[in-house]
């Protein structure tokens, strides 16, 4: 019995929080507004504290690799754990201003920034090879997509204007007007998806984010 109460109570709590937020917006009742503000502050504190939770979870996965000596993987996991612990300790030496630690700042400025930008850009390679080997106008959909895409590319790249003066105008039309109906429709469809997801959450049906899989 306790298990059922514990479970259902959580969904009721979620629904109450959702309703408070909605009432606060449409009715502007000072008392509700104060509660909503407090709940949003709590949510911010919880999210902030959960930042470290993500790290703990991933370190747990990698330490299992090290314990089990998973072939070809465990030494990379050990390296990951070492870097995590080393940089964490460096940062904790001056938690109020970690960058004051010269080694921490050096690692941040040169390794983190470079790796971040390098990783983020890797898809550029894949787009180039896919453009050559896979982007085919196999049907009307793909044909329209590729034509609009090429025209927008010729508008974005300054050389388009050199090739033909009207290219930026044509590409500009697709970029400013041509894509509007589709993007506007995606906004409308996404809004309804959010409302439906919220409705199912209100009635305790959406449980994926609690770690329970699928419908209850």
């Amino acid at each position, binding site marked *: 019995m306790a298990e059922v109460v514990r479970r259902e109570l959580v969904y009721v709590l979620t629904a109450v929080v959702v309703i408070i937020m909605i009432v606060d917006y449409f009715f502007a009742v000072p008392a509700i507004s104060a509660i909503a503000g407090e*709940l949003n502050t709590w949510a911010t504190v919880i999210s902030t504290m959960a930042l470290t939770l993500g790290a703990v979870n991933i370190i747990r996965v990698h330490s299992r690799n090290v314990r089990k000596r998973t072939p070809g993987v465990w030494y990379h996991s050990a390296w990951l754990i070492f870097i995590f612990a080393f940089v964490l300790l460096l940062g904790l030496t001056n938690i*109020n201003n970690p960058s004051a630690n010269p080694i921490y700042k050096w690692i941040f400025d040169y390794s983190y920034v470079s790796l971040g930008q390098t990783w983020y850009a890797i898809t550029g390679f894949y787009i180039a090879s896919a453009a050559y*080997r896979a982007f085919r*106008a196999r049907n009307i959909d793909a044909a329209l997509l590729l034509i609009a895409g090429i025209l927008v*590319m010729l508008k974005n790249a300054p050389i388009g204007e050199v090739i033909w003066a009207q290219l930026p105008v044509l590409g500009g039309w697709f970029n400013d007007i041509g894509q509007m109906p589709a993007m506007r429709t995606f906004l409308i469809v996404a809004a309804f998806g959010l409302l439906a997801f919220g409705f199912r959450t209100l009635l305790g049906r959406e449980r994926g984010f609690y770690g329970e899989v699928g419908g209850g």
Partner: protein
Amino acid sequence: MSQESIWDRLQRIDRRVIYWILFILLMIPFIRPLSLPVSIGPQSITFIEGLRKLKEGDVVVINISSGVSAWPECLPSLVAVSKVLIQQKAKIIFWTSFVDGHMTFEKIVEKVPEFKKLTYGVDYVHLGFYTGAEPAVAQLAKNIRSIFTTDYKGTPIDQLPIMKGVNSANDVKMVISSDTGDYCDYYIRQWRIPYGVPLAEIGIAMNFSAYQPHWQAGILFGVTAGARGGAELEKLIGAPGDATITMDSINTSHLLVIVAVILANLGYAATRRRK
């Protein structure tokens, strides 16, 4: 050799050959710049016009929700916008939802010399990091001090002259959000619509498509498309910078992709006609 085998052999080119060609093509314009003119889109024009309406002492928030990994796309626009805000003598409050946002703030200050004539804590400030997605953004609109009790170096917020009388969205004249993800949606829903605060988006190029309908609906007064938007803003304020240089290498990379798509489809048409 019949024509079909040419397409078959072209198709069997190792993908790494294409990667090397691309990486080399990207480098050439940095060594020998083409410096072609950049045409300016209406979204950049309304962006600068919106900034020019600011009066001395107006408080502007710059929300950094793009990481250091997106510097090539978002930093040039942030630098250009900061220059205009300083020219308008506005007071600038930075804050960030990225753990490396202070790096972006310090890089902006480094790239905008005019900051040296200003006083930190009086003319501009960086309040630091916050997380929590939409609840945090909603609470910032209601009570900034419930989210930021200090600036990013730990100085209590009430010891910062710039923050005197700045408590909520009602005290902020404009928000500029730099995004790689959804934070602009949160500022639309929790700042722009409820409080009417003018809002503009500095986004990676993909975000331009997503926020174009909001610009046309008048919800956003400006949208920049990554490095291209940065180059347009730089041209509008007459201060060519990093984005203008990047535009050169965009030419060669885009030509490669376009030629690749055309070749792929010529080959596809040829092989289909053979079947």
